[in-house]
């Protein structure tokens, strides 16, 4: 069936800000969808509140709305744009839920809009727990014994029937938010209460716990004719009990005999047929390890994180194919883009194995629980391809950026055997490393399998790695040992470290990796896919490919940004992709290297060639040896790519853009200080230190509060404001627990207005597309601040100073390309806090709202063009007619025990944008897009530190005037009452009396919490407990008075969606 003739204009709903459980994979899917639709000549209208995405880029759709993803907003846009169809299955859970609501309300029917991809009945059958169970029963597919309940009492009753432990799964929540395993009635009471509240329809499923069963996934596709295929099977290293997003996953499934494999594959096909999905679908199964018994765990009738992984693991573009199916095509009509000669109606065959490893934020959240369960905690992931599991695993460990090059975790080395045995019981982020440690110590496979329930196959494979390392460590390093280690992709440096011997002294013949193609068909057909992975084997297909495709174009490698993590998110993928596009436009051959399966950059047709590999020095060496590029670009791939600069330069690779020296000059404290002095630019006083003693001395010299951070970091990782010696002690203890290659920086902390500038420099001229001002004063990490473009409160003089300083710095650093500079304005004086001669997280949004395509311009400059030749004059770009407010989005619901207090360490996982003619409206949209409910009445609780008390008088008064009921703890309450603001008194938690803050939060009377505190971030503190309780109760909790002031102003405007103009950014 060809394209449906009744489809002309399609609305695509994106997935919104990046949160845990819904990340860059939907930008990848959405981008593929938009491109597929446009290729068919359809008009595409897009709505997504996330400005950091490729899909919200001008050439992705005909109309683009960066607006809040709420029902009212989507309705309004449908009324304006009058699309004839809406694509429901490409925008994650957000897109699916919105589509379903629109359909159920009858809104789509009223407006003659067709729902493509999955109809409401399909969505209902897959998403509603009971309907799903009934559907499965009707086709004879077994489900885990379970019951949907709407009260805690019913949950408890059912648990008694099926026996503990039980799993609680709330309906319609992201990444299993609010779910958990309950071992006892007490646990169940707590988890069910929480789950019921978080479920938008107040339903949870109570289910028999099948922890320890194998977890197997199938990605399935169906078309309207009823053709069905499976794209990929996947097996979780971690058995059932750990969310698949937090599991190490391999593709294809490895421990299933054909009988079990086909049993589950057939089940998956039966399910997608029964649900009548037209597009992609993910089926998760639990398989009992000692029989053929299985259960269907979950079905997602849409593209997902797993489908992104399956696409990258096989080369089969699921989202693209799903989109074509949604608009009428059948699988046997769609060409397999990879081979160019076969059709999409086949199943990929792999001749390699893929390992996915999650990236967790616990290097940042040191006090958070690292245990894993049904609630996903990872912010991102990497994928590694190898010809053996061992090789893929070592590549995975090197890709995940934990500073590891083997599975041996430093902190485990000193444990006793007994401690290792104990630690094996923990289902946490270090489990694979702990198994590895146990194997090194000679623990039996049986014992490890019994304790961890991880399948013997995986344990034995890790044993191979442990044995190899023990062999390397034992005796003389030989060529045989070297070759064996290389087979598993151990870097030369690691082999030297483990053996304690030098390769050159031992006369070892070293070698580079070769590259194999990912071709969907295990070499059965010749393919032209420029998609490769490294391995240590005979044939180098990339070399062959390059020689068969000779060009006289300049060949340039763009290094990507690795896994999504807090501080280095999707923005850098946006920048990498734009760089590639610009390079292609300039007539260059653009080669991409990255390891993140969720992203657009790792789509095999983004660049001219894609290498899916770790981003470390030695991996890069092999790539350079094969590609022999003209140059490399590092400034768009975040810190991951920047880290490669020095090595690339040392090995003689031309770095396009800002040089390695300049990058170093910005990061090296002493060189940077010298530079600032030369430029006559003030910065807060500071020192560099290596030890706790030095840190204490420096802090006291500067005078508290001081800002502590390691150099060479991104996203303010491990950055704190210390108010006293004990803060410094606590911080240094944590930071020195891992190897300290670079010093710690200590600065005097100035609490002024923070201003951020992204600039482009060609060595002569410089261009500032816009000056951004932060709503929160310095001290809140720039990534967690609400950022406003154009700056609203700065005087002309200050702006002029900022422009001058930016010019001086860009020139002094010889910036060729992008530079990001953070300033603080304190007492009418401008200070520089940080200079990053690379792209930053604000580049995508500033590019979109100013229309200045920063990355494209910067890329052209790197290739020799100037700003002038591209039509730009030096200085500040003229301010446009729209105000854009970027609001951070957090994933605190998913991360228990993380203090929500904002500080110098970044905590947000994503961002949303509000665009409007006025600042107030833009802020209103931004807050709404970030998930604020904007309640106009209710209760507000204040509990603030002493230094904030004077400032909250006005704030409290504003809330009071709006008719809010005010509550506060003793000090704050009496202060407010003294100032004639009627405030109810409430006890602190530790005072143990009623009414206290916790019971107040649970009462349902409270809509906003304003909580700031001076001390620590330990979970035991009263203030932290209160903030956590707010998160659990989904109450907006503001930890900066500045944010609260902005919010109250918005509420006071008394606007609704009807009052807001919807902005199509393609018209800016």
């Amino acid at each position, binding site marked *: 069936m060809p394209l449906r003739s009744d489809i002309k204009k399609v609305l695509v709903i994106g997935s919104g800000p990046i949160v845990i459980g819904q990340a860059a994979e939907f930008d990848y899917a959405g981008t593929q969808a938009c491109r597929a639709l446009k290729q068919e000549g359809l008009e595409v209208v897009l709505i997504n509140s996330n400005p950091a995405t490729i899909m919200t880029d001008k050439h992705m759709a005909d109309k683009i709305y960066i607006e809040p993803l709420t029902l009212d907003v989507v309705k309004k846009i449908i009324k304006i744009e009058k699309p004839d169809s809406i694509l429901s299955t490409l925008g994650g859970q957000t897109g699916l839920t919105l589509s379903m609501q629109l359909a159920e309300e009858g809104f789509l029917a009223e407006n003659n809009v067709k729902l493509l991809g999955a109809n409401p009945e399909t969505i209902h059958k897959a998403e509603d727990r009971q309907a799903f169970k009934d559907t499965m029963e009707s086709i004879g597919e077994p489900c885990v014994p379970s019951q949907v309940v709407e009260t805690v009492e019913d949950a408890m009753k059912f648990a008694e029937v099926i026996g503990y432990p039980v799993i609680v799964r709330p309906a319609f929540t992201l990444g299993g938010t609010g779910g958990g395993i309950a071992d006892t009635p007490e646990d169940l009471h707590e988890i069910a209460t929480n789950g019921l509240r978080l479920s938008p329809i107040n339903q949870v499923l109570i289910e028999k716990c099948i922890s320890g069963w194998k977890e197997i996934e199938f990605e399935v596709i169906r078309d309207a*004719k*009823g*053709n*069905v*295929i*499976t794209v990929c099977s996947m097996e979780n290293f971690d058995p059932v009990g750990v969310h698949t997003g937090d599991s190490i996953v391999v593709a*294809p499934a*490895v*421990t*299933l*005999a*054909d*009988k079990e*494999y*086909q049993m589950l*594959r*057939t089940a998956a*096909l039966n399910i997608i047929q029964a649900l009548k999905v037209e597009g992609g679908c993910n089926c998760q199964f639990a398989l009992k*390890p*000692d*029989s053929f018994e299985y259960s269907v765990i979950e079905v997602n009738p849409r593209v997902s994180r797993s489908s992104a992984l399956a696409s990258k693991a096989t080369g089969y573009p699921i989202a693209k194919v799903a989109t074509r199916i949604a608009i009428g095509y059948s699988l*046997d009509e769609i060409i397999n883009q990879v081979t160019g*000669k*076969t*059709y999409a*109606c*086949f*199943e*990929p*065959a*792999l*001749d*390699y*194995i893929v390992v996915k490893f999650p990236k967790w934020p616990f290097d940042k959240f040191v006090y958070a629980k690292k245990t894993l369960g049904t609630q996903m905690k990872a912010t991102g992931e990497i994928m590694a391809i190898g*010809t*053996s*599991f061992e090789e893929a695993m070592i590549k995975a460990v090197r890709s995940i950026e934990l500073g590891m090059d083997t599975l041996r975790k430093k902190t485990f080395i000193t444990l006793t055997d007994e401690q290792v045995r104990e630690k094996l019981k923990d289902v946490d982020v270090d489990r694979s490393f702990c198994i590895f440690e146990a194997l090194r110590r000679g623990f039996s496979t049986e014992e490890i399998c019994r304790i961890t329930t991880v*399948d*013997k*196959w995986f344990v*034995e494979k890790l*044993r*191979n790695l442990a*044995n*190899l390392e*023990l*062999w390397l460590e034992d005796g003389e390093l030989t060529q*045989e*040992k070297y070759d*064996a280690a290389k087979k598993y992709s151990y870097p030369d440096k690691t082999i030297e470290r483990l053996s304690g011997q030098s390769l050159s002294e031992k006369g070892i013949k070293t070698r580079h990796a070769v590259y*194999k193609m990912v071709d969907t*068909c*295990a*070499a*059965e*057909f*010749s393919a032209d896919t420029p998609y490769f992975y490294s391995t240590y*084997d*005979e*044939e180098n297909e990339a070399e062959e490919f390059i020689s068969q495709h000779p060009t006289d174009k300049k060949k340039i490698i763009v290094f990507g940004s690795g896994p999504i993590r807090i501080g280095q998110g999707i923005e850098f993928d946006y920048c990498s992709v734009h760089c590639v596009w610009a390079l292609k436009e300039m007539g260059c051959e653009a080669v991409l290297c990255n390891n993140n399966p969720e992203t657009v950059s790792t789509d095999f047709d983004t660049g001219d060639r894609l290498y899916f590999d770790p981003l470390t020095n030695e991996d890069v060496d092999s790539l350079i040896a094969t590609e022999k590029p003209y140059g490399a670009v590092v400034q768009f791939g975040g810190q991951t790519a920047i880290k490669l600069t020095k090595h690339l330069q040392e090995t003689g690779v031309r770095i396009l853009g800002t040089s390695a020296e300049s990058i170093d000059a910005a990061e090296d404290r002493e060189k940077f200080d010298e530079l600032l002095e030369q430029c006559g630019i003030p910065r807060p006083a500071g020192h560099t230190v290596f030890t706790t003693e030095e840190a204490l001395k420096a802090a006291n010299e500067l005078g508290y509060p001081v800002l502590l951070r390691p150099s060479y970091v991104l996203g303010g990782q491990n950055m704190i404001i210390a108010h006293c010696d004990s803060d410094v002690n606590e911080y240094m203890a944590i930071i020195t627990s891992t190897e300290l290659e670079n010093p710690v920086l200590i600065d005097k902390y100035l609490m002024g207005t923070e201003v951020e500038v992204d600039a482009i420099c060609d060595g002569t001229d410089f261009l500032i597309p816009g000056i951004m001002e932060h709503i929160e004063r310095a001290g809140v990490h720039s990534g967690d601040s609400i950022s406003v473009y154009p700056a609203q409160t700065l005087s002309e003089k200050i702006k002029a100073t900022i422009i001058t300083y930016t010019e001086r710095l860009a020139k002094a650093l010889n910036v060729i390309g992008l530079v990001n500079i953070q300033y603080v304005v304190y007492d009418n004086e401008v200070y520089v806090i940080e200079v990053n001669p690379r792209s930053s997280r604000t580049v995508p949004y500033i590019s979109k709202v100013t229309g200045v395509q920063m990355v494209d311009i910067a890329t052209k400059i790197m290739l020799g063009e100037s700003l002038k030749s591209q039509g730009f004059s030096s200085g500040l770009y003229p301010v446009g007619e729209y105000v854009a407010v970027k609001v951070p989005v957090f994933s605190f619901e998913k991360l228990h025990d993380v203090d929500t207090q904002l500080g110098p360490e970044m905590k947000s996982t994503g961002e949303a944008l509000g665009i409007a003619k006025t600042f107030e409206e833009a802020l209103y949209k931004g807050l709404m897009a970030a998930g604020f409910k904007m309640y106009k009445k209710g209760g507000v609780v204040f509990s603030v530190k002493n230094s904030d008390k004077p400032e909250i008088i006005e704030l409290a008064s504003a809330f009071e005037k709006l008719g809010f009921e005010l509550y506060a703890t003793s000090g704050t309450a009496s202060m407010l009452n003294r100032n004639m603001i009627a405030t109810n008194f409430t006890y602190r938690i530790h005072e143990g009396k009623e009414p206290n803050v916790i019971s107040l939060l649970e009462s349902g009377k409270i809509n906003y919490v304003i909580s700031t505190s001076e001390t620590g971030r330990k979970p035991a503190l009263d203030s932290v407990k209160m903030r956590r309780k707010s998160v659990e109760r989904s109450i907006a909790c503001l930890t900066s008075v500045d944010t609260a002031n902005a919010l109250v102003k918005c509420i006071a405007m008394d606007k609704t969606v009807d009052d807001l103009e919807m902005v199509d950014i393609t018209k800016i």
Partner: protein
Amino acid sequence: MSFGIGAERTAYLILADGTVFKGKSFGCEGEVIGEIVFTTAMTGYEETLTDPSYCGQIVTQTFPLIGNYGVNGEDMESDGSVVSGYIVREHCKAPSNFRCEGDIDGFLKKHGIIGLYDIDTRRLTRIIRETGVMNGMITQAEPTDEFLTRALERIRAYRVEAPVPKVSVKQPVDFPADSAKYKVALIDYGYKHNIRRELVKRGCDVTVFPYNVTAQQIKDFAPDGIMLSNGPGDPQDNAVSINTLRELIPEQIPTFGICLGHQLLAIANGATTVKLKYGHRGGNQPVTDIDEDRTFITSQNHGYAVVSESVPPQAGRVSHINGNDKTCEGVKYTNAPAFTVQFHPEACGGPQDTAYLFDKFIGMMEKNKRS
């Protein structure tokens, strides 16, 4: 892997074009010559090793990790293994599965099969893809020039000769079903046991006849249906069997043919077959059922195909085609109640999506019985 302890013996693969791969020996040691084919199936190696259609061939697995779940005996598709040799990138020495009774190395040793591992199997696959199916030799002998010269002569001279008699039963064997409704004669050209299991499961008493059973013997047996099995080699080599089928056509007995059985019935009806460049072997081949306008994923293992244009219109017409190379995947006969497919609806290993064809066969027998 036992690092540094007892190095495995080196072994070589020598291709007819002179290419030499250096790997390691597993399974039985020794020397063997065969036709090298590759399968892209990612699971089902025990089924592959026991599929009689691979008789005379050295099988290469494109999936690099073989033996992960061990072997169990239950998943065997014949009583033994007739592959000439077996090539994998890596074989698993510590398999894991609840039905596992041993590893693949032990299996090859038990069945006398010479194995080779630790070579770049993707490179080998690409060579076969580009140059077509090729003979080769696995040997432990050092491939000196002198050795190569002599070996290549023997390699090039090798031909899979009349393999069907080697793998077919010698005497009829009965496999009764519980409360059987139909009597099926399964002509064994090297049948996979799951063909029989699928029939027995559906209430057929199955009698397996040797490849050289005569038409008269079948007529005397008076079956409700005839099942023509898969099997190895060039279909043209089976004159006796083709003749038998030619004689059976007028009997109007419901007939279902798979793989070699499909090819033989086509030849018996006047069609011709052709050797494919490197065949279809794996579990991911798309096949379009023309009448249904549906495409199914199938399990396949064949090196020859029926030439679509050669199917005489008065005998029947092509009912299925391969989604990739558009070759003939099935014939629906009009001169007899018969249909045949090139792929393997009995799966094992591979997808079960076309198992409904057995139901169709049952339906055909039922209809025939009633009329």
